[in-house]
């Protein structure tokens, strides 16, 4: 649920950011309107350089509408009508376009896609626009926005934006923003003539991890940098300091990557740990159940296009149901006739996986489906400018652990769990004790499948939602379960996470492909040595 909170928080900042454009920053003058009109007309057919000029002009014009225009230009909703060449803001409604005049905001009704022409911008222009908007938002009341602004400015800092920073520094209260601003100023100061200023600047830069800071220091020590020995020395030290700290964070980063890869494996495998580990059913259609989960997410998003933020929260239970029910259907329809014949089960379920794939192809077309990422899941949590944890990975790690714990509780605490374990250990005895084993089988399989579906929701945030989604994971997840030890959830947890981390530490020197191969070979050999995995089931029952 932390996810929801953070989600709202981020949503807020978004909102704040968008409020920005309506804040009046200067007084309009009579002639500006005319002036603007003139410039806007040049927008449509001017070269990118012309546009750059116009943007600059608009920024300095101080007209409050200017900001709105810049924003819409950046957002790429600024068009002009082909017939009367009038510059308009376009709002896309499913088929047609809604036009509003850019200056006086009056509605101009609808238009066909090909009646209007977008005013193209390129990356250079985007950069400039961001910079402009940033400079205009240094004094914004939300520190997050200010931080973004400062960072934007620092990216390509120049003499004339430094005064802005200095001025802002005096009023700044938030530490993070302060650090950023100081860094920005320092970047300029390392170039100053006053040696003392330079040294302090270098010191400041040494304390931050901003890559830009490092570059400025690099520039100093590089041959043909500065002649002054002390400054060189100071810079070199500062650099060393930065490097050593960076290495630590790089290590942490790799661990995080490993864990997140592991968490994906865990999600993929944990459902299997139930069907395969507890029931002994080889479900080759497991991957396709995940695929169903992913498609459920897609459908949910289709149904609630205006609440993407919450779509995942809806999708999780939905996917659980869809996949779970499918699973129960499979169990009742096929698997129950094959208990005690694992190899046959394997074949039958493989057939089912083909059927499911082709069914999805026929229903949703073979093309991948685009599943949107809610705002609160995109972007990353900046620990500092050297280490940033991407939110989607972060949430998926948390989520996978959540699922794991939930499953554990179900199996250990609920009566269903009790019955499941009873059936797993001695089906006849269980039946004798009045447990409806058939019912338990169905539910257990449903549970495992449902979890697969939930995993699918997570995957939809990481990779393609397409008919082949399942195949990519099935082998890995079997590997994890077998490696961890069949019938042992903890084994699955440890197995998944460790495999993930190992993989990530191998990757740098072996490359992605070789890493995967090595891990596979390792598992194959491992199973030879310990055929029952990391945490084998003990006890006479297991002696079979």
């Amino acid at each position: 649920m932390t996810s929801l909170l953070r989600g709202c928080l981020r949503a807020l900042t978004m909102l704040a950011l968008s409020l920005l454009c309506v804040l009046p920053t200067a007084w309009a003058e009579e002639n500006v309107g005319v002036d603007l009109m003139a410039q806007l007309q040049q927008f449509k057919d001017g070269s990118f350089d012309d546009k750059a000029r116009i943007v600059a002009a608009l920024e300095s014009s101080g007209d409050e509408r200017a900001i709105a225009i810049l924003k819409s230009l950046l957002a790429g909703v600024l068009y002009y009508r082909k017939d009367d060449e009038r510059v308009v803001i376009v709002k896309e409604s499913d088929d047609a376009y809604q036009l509003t005049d850019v200056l006086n905001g009056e509605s101009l009704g609808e238009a066909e896609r090909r009646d209007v022409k977008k005013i193209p911008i390129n990356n250079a222009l985007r950069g400039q626009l961001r910079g402009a908007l940033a400079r205009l938002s240094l004094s914004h009341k939300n520190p997050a926005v200010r931080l973004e602004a400062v960072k934007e400015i620092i990216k390509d800092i120049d003499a004339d934006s430094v005064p802005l920073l200095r001025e802002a520094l005096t009023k700044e209260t938030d530490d993070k923003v302060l650090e950023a601003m100081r860094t920005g100023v320092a970047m300029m100061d390392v170039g100053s003539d006053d040696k003392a200023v330079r040294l302090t600047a270098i010191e400041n830069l040494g304390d931050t991890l901003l890559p830009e800071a490092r570059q400025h220091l690099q520039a100093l020590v590089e041959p043909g940098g500065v002649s002054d020995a002390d400054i060189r020395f100071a810079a070199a030290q500062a650099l060393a300091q930065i490097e050593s700290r960076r290495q630590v964070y790089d290590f942490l980063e790799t661990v995080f990557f490993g864990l997140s890869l592991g968490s994906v494996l865990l999600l993929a495998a944990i459902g299997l740990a139930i069907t395969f580990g507890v029931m002994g059913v080889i479900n080759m259609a497991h991957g396709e159940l995940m695929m169903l989960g992913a498609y459920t997410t897609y459908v949910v998003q289709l149904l609630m296009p205006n609440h993407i933020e919450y779509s995942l929260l809806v999708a999780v239970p939905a996917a659980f149901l869809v996949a779970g029910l499918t699973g129960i259907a499979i169990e009742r329809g096929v698997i129950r006739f094959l208990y005690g014949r694992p190899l046959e089960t394997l074949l039958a379920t493989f057939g089912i996986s083909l059927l499911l794939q082709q069914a999805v192809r026929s229903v949703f077309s073979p093309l991948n489906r685009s599943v949107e990422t809610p705002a609160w899941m995109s972007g990353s949590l900046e620990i500092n400018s050297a280490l940033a944890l991407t939110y989607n990975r972060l949430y998926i790690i948390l989520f996978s652990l959540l699922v794991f714990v939930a499953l554990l509780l179900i199996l250990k605490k609920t009566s269903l769990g009790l019955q499941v374990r009873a059936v797993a250990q001695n089906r006849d005895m269980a039946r004798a004790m009045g447990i409806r084993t058939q019912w338990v089988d169905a539910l257990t399989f449903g549970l495992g499948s449902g979890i697969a579906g939930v995993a699918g929701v997570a995957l939809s945030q990481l990779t393609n939602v397409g008919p082949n989604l399942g195949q990519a994971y099935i082998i890995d997840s079997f590997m994890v379960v077998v490696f961890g030890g069949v019938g042992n959830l903890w084994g699955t947890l440890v197995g998944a996470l460790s495999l993930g981390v190992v993989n990530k530490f191998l990757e740098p020197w072996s490359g992605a492909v070789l890493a995967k191969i090595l891990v596979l070979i390792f598992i194959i050999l491992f199973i030879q040595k310990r055929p029952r995995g990391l945490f084998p089931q003990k006890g006479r029952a297991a002696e079979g």
Partner: protein
Amino acid sequence: MNSRKQISTLRCIVGAVALGMMSQWVQAADTIKVGILHSLSGTMAISETTLKDTMLMLIDEQNKKGGLLGKKLEAVVVDPASNWPLFAEKTRELISKDKVAAIFGCWTSVSRKSVLPVVEELNGLLFYPVQYEGEESSKNVFYTGAAPNQQAIPAVDYLMKDVGAKRWVLAGTDYVYPRTTNKILEAYLKAKGVKSEDIMINYTPFGHSDWQSIVSDIKKFGSQGKKTAVVSTINGDANVPFYKELANQGISAADIPVVAFSVGEEELSGIDTKPLVGHLAAWNYFMSVDAKENDAFIKQWHAFIKDKKRVTNDPMEAHYIGFNMWVKAVEKAKSTDTNKVVDAIVGVKVPNLTGGTAEMLPNHHITKPVLIGEIQDDGQFEVVSKTDKLVPGDAWSDFLPGSKDIEADWVKLKCGNYNTKTKKCSGQNF
């Protein structure tokens, strides 16, 4: 199509030996058969099904115009099921059994490589619509997609001049097209004075989905002060997670622009494009191009596929060009005989969809404009640069040691890989 079904059913009953008779019966029908060899199932179905529909549409149109040489065109659709040996098998079937006049098909290089010997052996015609690595020119194959010099090099030029990129990441899926393209680019960049420590090359397996480490490496590589750009030859499925990771790790197009050679409108239709805005792609056609041929083509496509949301993309244009060239050549030669068509088609000019004309060159590649587009949030591309004149496709790259001495010319040399040094023509299957 229909008669083909009957054939197959019959074949199923009568069995292999009777097949001979079938083919006789087929020849009796007075149509010109056109083979369509695109995977309709398996992993490649994602991209290839669209091309099948495109061909059906084009053939449909041609028939409305009264067919060809007074005969109706008949499409013969087969499904090689993304299985490379099956491509060769189906080609053999199309040419020797169904006696098709020409085949339009293939997407991946390997499928083309698998088909090539068969087409040459049976002297058929193949029109190959996808951008590829070059290093090939066959008498029987016409390459209507881009050669590396019609996509990669102009894109790099753009990044150098207009974006001012100084450091380069060449990221690709580990197969022939990226490998070759990156080799060419590496050579080209070095020729332009880029130091090798400013070039980072990275290969990943097909459908690679965990991009965390690689993207963070790119990020580090890009934070060394010099403007950095990524040239992506990453294949199909791997792109979505790649771009998602880029966005999540906060790499915007403004910081490190990515120019892709395998990401078109169709691929984008499967991605949430908001985070991608500003990243680039280099193609010879974009759906967003303003040209009356294009508008007409799109209208036609939407009418045919009965879905206003469906996009058009570069390989579709390639088929459009290829098909029209073939039609023209057949009319010119007044026959569908392979050799006549091969002779007739070189020099044929047809309009492309971007308001220009495409010409078939003696090396069996065509002339194309090169467009650089920026991804917009509506999944379309905004053209930001266009080569002022048409670029002729170059079969053998001048930047590869192996092939810089090799030439392809089917008019004068009558050879697809003529070594100007040894004055020898090698590797011909006839």
